[in-house]
């Protein structure tokens, strides 16, 4: 415990902070800045942006609340945290929505100026929570954020409306002070971002400083907090979200394979950002095509693949449904294609801005006919980078469509990423066929993959299409035996990828009473849950799938070594269904669909329940 400016400094190992306000209050920006600075000072962290689907939801209402949660610590951080320690509430609605989640004795910093009759009414508060004792049990710090922001900005030449827009910077400055982080990175960012608009730079910078100095000078806070640097592996780091990592992964795959990258895509939440990022990367030769609909998104990618590009399409659940038929075309024409599905809550339009894992069965089976595709899933924001490369590699090597599943949580969430050097990444070998002698469009190599002979290659003119093909020649064939053979070959081709993907590694004892098996974006929650169960003395192992079709070779073997297998998923048990079907073993499900990552303590409780007294 140290002293600083007369104030105590308390050391913490990890903290979860929630910034919440109206969707127009700039909470996502505030949260992102706090995360970037926190990453910059060396903490590990994980974030969870949570915002309404409406662009400008009615002001002051509970359904218009936008939140940004982040969890940072001095050791490895796997999740954005179950319950915040600190809540920054810019208005009554933000308090109302987030209070139930706040830890007991948690800190609430609220903008007292907005706790007026109007806003209390909009949030449907019957009495003012600041006066009716309902916040007893929390440490409440009412701060006149609006008033002080107006005061601080009076010389910037901004209109009242613009001044009000800077109040999130005041809150950010105060949080920087409270957690002892520098304000310089944000000041620099403000300068870069708004450089041309001097009065906005003035407003945001002054608000930020005013918030910081307010913390320093007021008697309100007796202590500040310090979270020491995390012990992270050596290297250069940046903060990365899953969508950005996905986009970078494809640019890398393009470079590693020597193929131009083509993205055909239609805007859809929460996948549009990948389109945004890739459309900026013109100087890397990336071509992005904003299609007229989801079907044209994938269709154009199939055309580009036929022409010899590394072709991808990006979407979210409802879009994947629309791409179904064209995916089948890529299966039967045996063209390389990567389809990214950033999963969101369903069915139908469902919960566009919330996360879920309920498209697994759609990805596996959602097509007419026997139509196998490879299915991969990324585990964390930075893992999206590697899985985008891996999906490209498999698609190109096996001449087959690959579906890469990410989800709203890892797509929008961010974490520090140790950036790899390009020469650490493995090259992707691509063979385009040019040899005229003996060319057959559906001849197969040792991977059962057919030759990629692209238009423009003299002497290899041939036709492919959606009608069943005769093996080897590729001619249209209605032959019974050939169709049976082709169905088997297409399935076998995907199965053979097993020899080409890493075996699954079990974390913990290699056999025992309980294995927790997860897939994709629940990696963080499960890891943290298992760690905390172990701290409580439970013997529990875990393993996490990134390859679902095909499964890693040794999965069956691993499953048999445990008495119980627990599968936590953000769906009604889709992986559980596949595991039961494939390995004929009973599994225990844990399923929650709240549009949010699984809560770690709930998984820990489930582990405890299964293991009972057996520590």
């Amino acid at each position: 415990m140290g002293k600083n400016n007369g104030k105590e400094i308390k050391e913490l190992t990890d903290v979860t902070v929630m910034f919440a306000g109206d969707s127009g209050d700039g909470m996502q920006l505030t949260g992102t800045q706090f995360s970037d600075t926190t990453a910059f000072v060396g903490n590990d962290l994980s974030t969870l942006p949570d915002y309404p689907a409406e662009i400008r939801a009615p002001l002051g209402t509970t359904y218009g609340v936008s939140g940004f949660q982040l969890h940072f610590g001095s050791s490895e951080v796997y999740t954005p945290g179950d319950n915040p320690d600190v809540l920054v509430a810019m208005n009554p609605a933000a308090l109302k929505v987030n209070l139930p989640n706040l830890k007991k004795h948690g800190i609430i910093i609220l903008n007292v100026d907005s706790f007026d009759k109007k806003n209390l009414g909009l949030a449907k508060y019957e009495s003012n929570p600041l006066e009716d004792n309902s916040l007893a049990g929390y440490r409440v710090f009412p701060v006149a954020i609006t008033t002080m922001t107006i005061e601080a900005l009076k010389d910037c030449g901004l209109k009242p409306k613009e001044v009000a827009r800077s109040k999130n910077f005041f809150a950010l400055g105060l949080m920087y002070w409270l957690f002892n982080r520098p304000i310089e990175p944000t000041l620099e960012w403000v300068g870069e971002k708004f450089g041309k608009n001097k009065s906005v730079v003035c407003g945001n910078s002054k608000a930020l400083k005013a918030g910081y100095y307010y913390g320093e000078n007021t008697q309100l806070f007796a202590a500040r907090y310090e979270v020491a640097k995390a012990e992270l592996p050596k290297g250069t780091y940046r903060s990365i979200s899953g969508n950005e990592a996905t986009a970078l992964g494809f640019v890398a795959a393009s470079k590693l394979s020597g193929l131009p990258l083509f993205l055909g895509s239609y805007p859809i939440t929460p996948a549009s950002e990948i389109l945004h990022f890739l459309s900026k990367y013109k100087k890397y030769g990336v071509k992005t095509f904003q299609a007229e609909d989801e079907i044209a998104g994938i269709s154009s990618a199939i055309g580009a693949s036929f022409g010899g590009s590394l072709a991808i399409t990006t979407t979210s659940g409802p879009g994947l449904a629309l791409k179904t038929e064209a995916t089948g075309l890529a299966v039967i024409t045996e063209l390389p294609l990567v389809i990214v599905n950033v999963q969101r809550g369903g069915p139908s339009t469902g919960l566009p801005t919330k996360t879920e894992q309920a498209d697994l069965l759609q990805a596996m089976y959602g097509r007419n006919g026997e139509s196998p595709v490879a299915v991969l899933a990324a585990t964390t924001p930075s893992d999206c980078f590697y899985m985008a490369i891996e999906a490209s590699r498999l698609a190109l090597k096996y001449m087959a469509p690959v579906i890469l599943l990410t989800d709203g949580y890892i797509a929008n969430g961010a974490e520090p990423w140790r950036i790899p050097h390009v020469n650490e990444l493995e090259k992707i070998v691509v063979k385009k066929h040019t040899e005229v002698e003996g060319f057959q469009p559906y001849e197969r190599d040792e991977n059962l993959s057919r030759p990629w002979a692209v238009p423009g290659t003299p002497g290899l003119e041939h036709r492919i299409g959606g009608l069943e093909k005769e093996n080897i020649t590729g001619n249209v064939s209605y032959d019974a035996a050939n169709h049976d053979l082709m169905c088997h070959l297409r399935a076998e081709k995907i199965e053979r990828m097993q020899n080409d993907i890493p075996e699954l590694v079990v974390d913990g004892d290699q056999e025992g009473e309980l294995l927790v098996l997860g897939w994709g974006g629940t990696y963080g929650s499960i890891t943290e849950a298992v760690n905390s169960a172990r701290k409580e003395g439970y013997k529990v192992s875990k393993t996490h799938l990134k390859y679902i079709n095909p499964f890693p070779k040794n999965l069956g073997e691993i499953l048999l070594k445990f008495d119980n297998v627990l599968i936590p998923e953000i769906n009604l048990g889709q992986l559980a269904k596949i595991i039961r079907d494939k390995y004929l073993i009973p599994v225990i499900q844990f399923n929650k669909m709240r549009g949010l990552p699984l809560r770690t303590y709930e998984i820990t409780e489930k582990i405890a329940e299964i293991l009972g007294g057996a520590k």
Partner: protein
Amino acid sequence: MNDKIDVKEMNLTPKDFQSDQDVRWCPGCGDYSVLAQVQRVFPTLGIPKEKFVWVAGIGCSSRFPYYMNTYGMHTIHGRAPAIATGLKVTRPDLSVWVATGDGDLMSIGGNHFIHACRKNIDLKIILFNNRIYGLTKGQYSPTSEKGKITKSSPFGSVDYPFNPLSLALGSEATLVARTIDRETKHMKEMLARVAEHKGLAFLEVYQNCLIFNDGAYSDLTDKEVKSEHVVVLEHGEPLIFGKKLDKGILLDGFTPVVVDLNDGRHSVDDLWVHDEKDEGPIRAFILSHMTDSPDMPTPLGVFRQILKPTYDEGVIQQIEHVIEEQGEGNLEELLFSGNTWVVE
């Protein structure tokens, strides 16, 4: 665009464009004629064989790629323009052709068609319009006339048909033309115009389906009557038709009027002179609408051709421009961009 080389040197013949697959259209189907004319025109274009690609959707006419010894893709219903778009945008060196029918393009593929037109993607779209669903055995199509009696409309269809040329013009296709299966010479001319056009070229071919909609165009093909029902459009020429070339069309405001050139009141000088390069689309639109009027002859020929930069060119230019300004992208730099920090 296409690296044209000497036609003679390439020595291509129609035979070079015939694939080894048996053609499986019904004997006497109008599709045969289109296939034959395409195979005649392609060797004359100065484009190497391997640079041609045919993309098709689903339907009788969409089997077209299988019969052409070029690169080809027979895809899924309605999506050919979208697939062709991805191919053309990534491979501007190719000459990309779409074979499609009225069900494929006007119904299930309507959205892709209008957007390909509006974006002016350098595609050649050949619509085989037989005004019927052939492959599914005879339901009315989006170009069938109202009141059509078919298997799915035993009491007559209630819907109004699309006018494909009006739709193409309204969607800003940059070359819009029409021909008919029986007029092989005219079709060859039109195919050559389409091939040479830079931008989205749309050619409607009136095609007879003798199984499910025989005689749909007999007024336009029967030797006895056709010259009374067809007006052939020629750039810079007045609109004249009739067996004895004694009828003309003049434009009265926005209304086309058929006049008798022998009545002593009208001369050739009064007639509407066709200008396919007309910047505005209105006159072409009036021409396309003449098709639906029982008192008017049906125009064949190029309705409109304008030139404007294509989408695929635009994409490439943008990339070149950015590279010129910022230099070629370096992946290592991209990965290490943004706020980075070092952990020692």
